């Protein structure tokens, strides 16, 4: 209404599928990956005053775990079903998870595309689907009024259990994906992220872009998507999340109804471990731009990593704490080398990446590279400055209430807890874990785990010296 930015709608979201380190697919408009990165850093902190939302867990009649938070204030709810069906399951067909996800919320056995969307919009609900490397999901936001909720959940159920996989939708979606891939060639962010994942992950399933490759996507058939769906969108591979103004009984009834009849199937197998990088790997991607994008990266941590807290808290000092991090200070505040500079761990099912990145004017590329390396090296060698560590902890702990101040955010972190099997008291114990981290632990963990000398280094820009 007042000011909106709703141009470039659908296809541009597709372009962003898994393209970029922190600009990936969305759950209800929320950038999950970025939220991931933040949450990891931030679930951390729990002030006594804020309290954490109480998560209840049970299983549906057919055995799917349900994670539920009662949020009675606004007459609406968020409902999600999440599968281990991200692009890490693409196998030799990069893009297949994204394609499959995109086909689910278009038409169903009973309803063609126009009728499906019309029925959905008659409820005022928003139904979405998306995927990242680890997970794929369907999500619904609806009013709790049964006049809206009942038909909305029914439509979500139809999308989940009886998607039509029509040729019409398949052909259109594949074309949009191909255009998206082509369009990514014009984005230094997307080019850099793709190169980084390739360099870090080699033959690991995380290596390929979530948006797929032109060759693979061109060769897809609707049967490919159907068999991916049948393999991975099954009860034993699912978790459910409910946040909203539904009491427990209503939530139980709704989730049972949503997944009734979903085949049991099999859980997805564990992903292979990620190998550490053995030799330095520098990649130059030619791109006609004024700036060079510098991206350093290596395998980082899994959700359950024993070094999780030292690394994540340490990174908050190094490059995670917005404008007060060491990298921001040295690169931007002291030298004006980059508008944006940061580092982060992206914990995933198995080691997700550690990334440090900046963008700078081509003539200053070498200077920026040197400073970036020097700051990271000093951090690894010396550990965090004590005052900065104390400040980072205060930021993480004191900022906790902001992480859970609305239903969208609560749903995001309950999704992480549910999908990655984190304990239900994960949040309540998090501040203690953060508080307990010492400078010596951080120094030790960085020394063992972060290896500047073998890091992949991606440069997107012009190689010609100006």
């Amino acid at each position, binding site marked *: *209404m*007042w*000011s*909106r*930015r*709703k*141009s470039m*709608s*659908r*296809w541009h979201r597709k372009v962003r599928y898994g393209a970029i380190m922190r600009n990936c697919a969305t759950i209800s*408009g*929320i950038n999950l990956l970025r939220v991931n990165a*933040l949450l990891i850093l931030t679930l951390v*902190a729990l002030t006594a005053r804020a309290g954490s939302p109480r998560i209840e867990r049970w299983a549906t009649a057919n055995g799917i775990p349900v994670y539920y938070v009662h949020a009675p204030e*606004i*007459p*609406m709810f968020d409902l999600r079903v999440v599968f281990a069906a991200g692009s890490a399951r693409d196998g030799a067909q990069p893009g297949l998870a994204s394609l499959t996800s995109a086909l689910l919320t278009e038409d169903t056995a009973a309803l063609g595309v*126009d009728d499906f*969307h019309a029925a959905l*919009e*008659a*409820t*005022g609900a928003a139904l979405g689907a998306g995927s990242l490397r680890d997970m794929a999901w369907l999500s619904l936001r609806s*009013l709790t*009024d049964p006049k*809206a909720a009942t038909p909305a959940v029914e439509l979500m159920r139809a999308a989940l259990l009886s998607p039509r996989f029509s040729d*019409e939708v398949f052909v*259109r979606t594949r*074309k949009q994906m191909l*255009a998206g891939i082509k*369009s990514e*060639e*014009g984005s*230094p962010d997307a080019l850099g992220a793709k190169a980084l994942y390739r360099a870090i992950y080699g033959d690991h399933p995380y290596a390929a872009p979530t948006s797929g490759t032109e060759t693979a996507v061109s060769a897809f058939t609707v049967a490919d998507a159907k068999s991916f769906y049948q393999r991975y969108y099954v009860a034993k591979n699912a978790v459910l999340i409910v946040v909203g103004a539904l009491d427990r009984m209503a939530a139980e009834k709704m989730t049972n109804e949503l997944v009734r009849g979903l085949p049991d199937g099999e859980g997805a197998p564990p992903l292979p471990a990620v190998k550490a990088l053995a030799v330095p790997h520098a990649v130059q991607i030619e*791109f006609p731009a*004024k*700036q060079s994008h510098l991206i350093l990266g290596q395998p980082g941590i899994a959700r359950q990593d024993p070094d999780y807290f030292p690394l994540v808290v340490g990174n908050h000092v190094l490059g995670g704490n*917005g*404008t*007060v991090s060491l990298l*921001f200070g040295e690169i931007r505040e*002291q030298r*004006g*080398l980059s*508008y*944006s500079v940061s580092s982060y761990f992206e914990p995933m099912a198995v080691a997700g990446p550690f990334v440090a990145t900046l*963008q*700078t*004017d081509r003539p200053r590329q070498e200077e920026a590279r040197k400073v970036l390396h020097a700051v990271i090296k000093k951090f690894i060698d010396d550990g965090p400055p004590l005052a900065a560590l104390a*400040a980072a902890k*205060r*930021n*993480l702990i*004191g*900022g906790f*209430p*902001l992480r859970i*101040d*609305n239903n*969208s955010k609560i749903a995001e972190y309950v999704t992480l807890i549910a999908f990655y099997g984190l304990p239900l008291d994960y949040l309540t114990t998090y501040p203690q874990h953060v508080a307990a981290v010492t400078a010596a632990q951080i120094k030790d963990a960085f020394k063992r785990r972060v290896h500047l000398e073998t890091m992949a280094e991606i440069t997107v820009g012009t190689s010609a010296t100006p």
Partner: protein
Amino acid sequence: MRYANTFTHRFAGELRMASIRAAWATLFFSFAVFATPQPTQEFALANGLRVIVQEDHRAPVVAIQVWYQVGASYELDGATGQSHALEHMMFKRTKTLKSGEFSRIVADRGGRENAFTSADYTTYFQTWSADQTELSMQLESDRMQNLVLDPAEFKNELKVIQEERRLRTDDSAQALALETVLAHTWQTSPYRQPVIGWPADLAQMQLPDLAAWYHRYYAPNNAILVVVGDVEIARIKQLATRYFGPIPRREVPPPKARPELPQRGEKRLTIASDKLRVPLLMLNYKVPGFTAVGHGQPATEAWEIYALDVLLATLDGGDSARFARHLVRGRELALSAGASYQSASRLEDLFSFTGAPREGHTLAELEAAIKAEIAALQSSPPDPAELARIKIAVVAQEVYQQDSLMGQAMLIGSLAVVGLDWRIKDSYAERIQAINPQQVQAVAKKYFQSDQATIAYVVPAQKHE
């Protein structure tokens, strides 16, 4: 916010512009359960500072924003980018704080902060634990009056801003194209200027320019304080009076009037980009918004603005809207096709269409198809069923938008700062509900004249190898 590239903030933070939701529609089919949020309230200090408070006690957090009535559309030729550059400098020294201390204080207490500049306003915000409300007031009142502009810091920050421009405009095919299109769409309106500033203007920017800008516009009577969250209005009154009350009112001269001249015929341009891989179409029409109501010859009426919003949703309000049904599906002509309408700007603004043709189709075909959709609304009113869908969506959106404190604060502030009564947010759904199909047809006829269009084809540049 006007466009992605005309809205720029201090660092790549997490401000979620999505929180200002696109809301279409209304109470047609009214749902039984309806949330009643706390009413929004406003008061003013003796020095002219307006304070708008929305209590929301769901979580012990608060969003605090200071909106200054100054932005890129206040700037003159040769001096573009000043508002945004000043925004960056507002995080440096004050008479009481060292450079960067502001951010350190906020981070230290678990807060998030950022700022953003648009054509119409410059806004600073913190979101944090509600018990930091007083500290926000203290910090914001300090930099409203005590900024110290240091030459060395300015020199460094200007480099940062130039990097920001390279990152977000020069090296982005779409943003650069949009900047070019806006400069061609507007002849005399300041909306032709990029918020971040033209490269040459950044290069020649001087610190005294920013000092003058600060002294001219950063006065309490030119600012609006918006507070949404776990607060009590009485306490906000007390704090605002304590911290902002002593700041003297100053005469703030109005911006130069630079009305857009009447457009004399269609404008058309082709932009080549060496970074673009998929061609794009941009199509702009100049239309009035809420600030035009009661002005013009004949005077613009309020219902026209709501009817334009309904028209927008008819074409591009979800997967059942006409663009999705006809252009993306149906004729399978477009990879994407979208529309936007800037209805809450200070000056006359745009109703814009954008799209990308599918392979095998041309920009000309897509242009013709979008114009045909407009023509269809001119020749016959939309179906009542289409309006019903739009109205249902607006009811739901009104509920959903209560979920975000920041979103609520953004909506209030963005209306108030351009001189609109923020109360129109509360009657919005009702006003949309009252729109009938004939009114949609009427605004389609009145405002979408072919000689008022600016049409841009953005095409991948030919490679010279």
